[in-house]
């Protein structure tokens, strides 16, 4: 067994152990902490799978942003845990479910192992068409050129989920700011961290977005890191959460999808199809769209974590 196989096996066993612990542990808060660790381990797995773009996005979203969201929720829900525990299904149901899930895992494992060799792949086709897009990173090309429609629809999905979250506000608080009033403790550790990290994080996010055209990175990892920095600042109380009725917020939220739509519709006339790029202008257009996407993704993810409005704007 070579070293790399040993590392992989060790990593896989570790991830499995943490996942089993997340399912089995009694306390919800502990489970969420375990989930953050699991996210970081998964990012390592993605690196081992030679998918660095995914690793960056998983680290930022999977453990960072999702972790923050779930930790806040677990803290607020602490008092509800004991009653819920009384509804645990009986032992027979648990055993049956376990058997069913084991069966599904087994079937899935058989399917994964019986995938054809050599594996059918679109990598050669993707590589062959890269020059037409002017990009060097295959994943960015897939996201913003070959399968741009998926990315466009996904931006609409994000916006709709934000509207859904906002719709859960009480009527009187509509238009106001999400979340409780934060008390800023100037000497606190969180504030110190927030004064240190975001400037670095913002630079890293911008670099990752810019480099994503030719290296691993792109709008999604960049946008999520930017979101994480903003969320940190909001949690520490250094930045006030914007009120949801503010026009400037709405414009930033919509900017990415709107620009994407505009370029796509222009493609009807200057190129030969919706979402097609005119010859030679593909890379600059893609970078412009990605820039707008970075801002929008950061804004949407940040507002998703902030939640529905709870208090009216103070003047």
């Amino acid at each position, binding site marked *: 067994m070579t070293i790399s196989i040993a590392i992989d096996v060790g990593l896989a066993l570790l991830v499995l152990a943490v996942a089993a612990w997340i399912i089995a542990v009694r306390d919800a808060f502990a489970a969420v902490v375990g989930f953050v660790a699991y996210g970081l381990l998964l990012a390592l797995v993605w690196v081992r799978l030679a998918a660095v773009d995914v690793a960056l996005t998983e680290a930022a979203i999977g453990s960072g942003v999702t972790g923050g969201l779930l930790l806040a929720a677990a803290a607020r829900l602490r008092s509800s845990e004991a009653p819920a525990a009384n509804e645990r299904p009986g032992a027979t149901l648990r055993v049956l479910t376990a058997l069913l899930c084991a069966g599904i895992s087994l*079937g899935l494992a058989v399917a994964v192992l019986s995938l054809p060799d050599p594996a059918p792949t679109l990598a050669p086709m993707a590589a062959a068409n890269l020059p037409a897009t002017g990009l060097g990173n295959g994943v960015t090309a897939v996201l913003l050129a070959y399968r741009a429609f998926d990315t466009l629809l996904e931006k609409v999905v994000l916006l*709709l989920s934000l509207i859904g979250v906002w719709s859960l506000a009480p009527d009187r608080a509509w238009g106001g700011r999400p979340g409780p009033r934060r008390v800023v403790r100037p000497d606190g550790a969180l504030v110190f961290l927030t004064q240190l990290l975001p400037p670095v994080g913002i630079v890293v996010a911008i670099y990752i977005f810019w480099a994503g055209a030719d290296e691993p990175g792109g709008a999604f990892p960049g946008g999520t890191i930017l979101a994480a920095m903003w969320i940190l600042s909001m949690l520490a109380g250094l930045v006030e959460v914007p009120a949801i009725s503010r026009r400037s917020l709405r414009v930033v939220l919509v900017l990415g999808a709107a620009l994407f739509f505009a370029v796509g519709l222009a493609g009807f006339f200057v190129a030969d199809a919706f979402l097609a790029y005119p010859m030679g202008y593909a890379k600059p257009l893609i970078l412009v769209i990605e820039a707008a996407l970075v801002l929008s993704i950061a804004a949407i993810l940040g507002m998703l974590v902030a939640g529905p409005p709870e208090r009216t704007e103070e003047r």
Partner: protein
Amino acid sequence: MIAHATTASGFLLVLAIVFPAAGILLALTLGGRHAERITLALLPVGTAVAIAIACEVWRAGDALVYLLGGWQPPLGVMLRADGLSAVMLVTTSLVICAAGLFGRAGFRTPENLHEARAPLAFWTLLLGVWAALNAVFLGHDLFNLYVGLELLTFGAVPLVALSGRPETLTAALRYLLFALLGSVLYLLGTALLYGAHGTLDIALLAARVRPEPVAWVAAALMTAGLLAKTALFPLHLWLPPAHAGAPAAASAVLSALVVKGSFFLIVRLWFDAMPGLMPQAAAQLLGTLGAAAILFGSVLALRQARLKLLIAYSTVAQIGYLFFLFPLAMGPDLGHSWQAAAWTGGWIQLVSHAFAKAAMFLAAGLIAEAVGHDRIAELAGIGRALPISALAFGLGGLSLMGVPPSGGFVAKWLLLTAAVEAGQWWWALVMLAGGLLAGGYVFRVLGQLWGDANGSLALRARVSRRREALALALALCALSLGFLPLQPNALLQIGRPHAAELVVR
């Protein structure tokens, strides 16, 4: 090697999705009462696009295709509208038009506010559901369809909880968890299919897929996930509280259209992406679950005390009829005459149920508004105060029962004759029982509506005749389908892939 090319009027397919989606962006940015205006302005535009697509498909006698970005599958993604998509697009736009116009009364932004919660949410979510449904009906790539499914879920779930009442919050959360489970199982199946064939384009998959373990596991996972989203028995638990708790216009859209989106994908999967791969046992299993849904749902509907819950359980039952498509319209050897009849019957059932159920939910909403509650036992005589609503409810009910003339009758007739011809007479028995049970719960309500008012009826609010007319219009659509000939329909056959072509005799 299949080479696709964008057909001349293919851009209409893009517009069908882009218009509602762009409407969401505009509504969110401009905010306030502009959301309502934008949606109302888009209603005729979107309907015109849908009708244009249907006319083009009929005229060309072939499917419309659009290559997005100019990239060919398997690298790129394309949209495709066959006869089936066209029918679904038109049905969707008509029901959404009715729901939008109906919702004007309930979701008007108050004069003294720039923006209010429920109106902004309702109009943008309605546009979202519309865009999602169009994306589902036009998509030709399994992952693109996954994104469309997620868009549909995120549009539908908040609509359930729009009123803010605690029981609707519970119903919405349960709905969301079921829907997410369904999506993730579907996604798992697409991962396996991509791993096995290197593409997610439906036509390319149909050419490459073979009966092997990977295909079985993938198909099983995807079907299980989509069944959870379609609320087929026994995964129907989430539907009644969710559809009953939503506001009336939203319930209409949820029962008529949203559950049909995932059903549409099950058909796309088995008839188009993996034709001829379904074992007879699986087809019979789906049919059995459908039969159980009909019987179970109808009996539970009979026992409901609240009108909206009765209608929701009726949805659970009527969805069961759709699953007779699998044992009857599918088979290793195509070319049997009953298969085309079953195909047509199944889709007419879907469309007429959409209209009828939407009409019933809107009528029930008006009744609830007028009296302040929807307890069936206390609705005696309301039909005299709201005759148009009662009529709409009655006509919708006739379609559910399968009484001529109605779309429901044509659908069930075709399915019945197909079942008998195919030698699978047990489905015919279930359909007859289902019709009787439907008659039971429909006449139970109608009896109350037109019964003697025993004096306990107090109208709390006046209901506009225009909104009653909307419910009636939808019911008349269901009725008008009853004038279709009792034969396989040519429009539904346009653009069927060659391997899955059903003979139209």
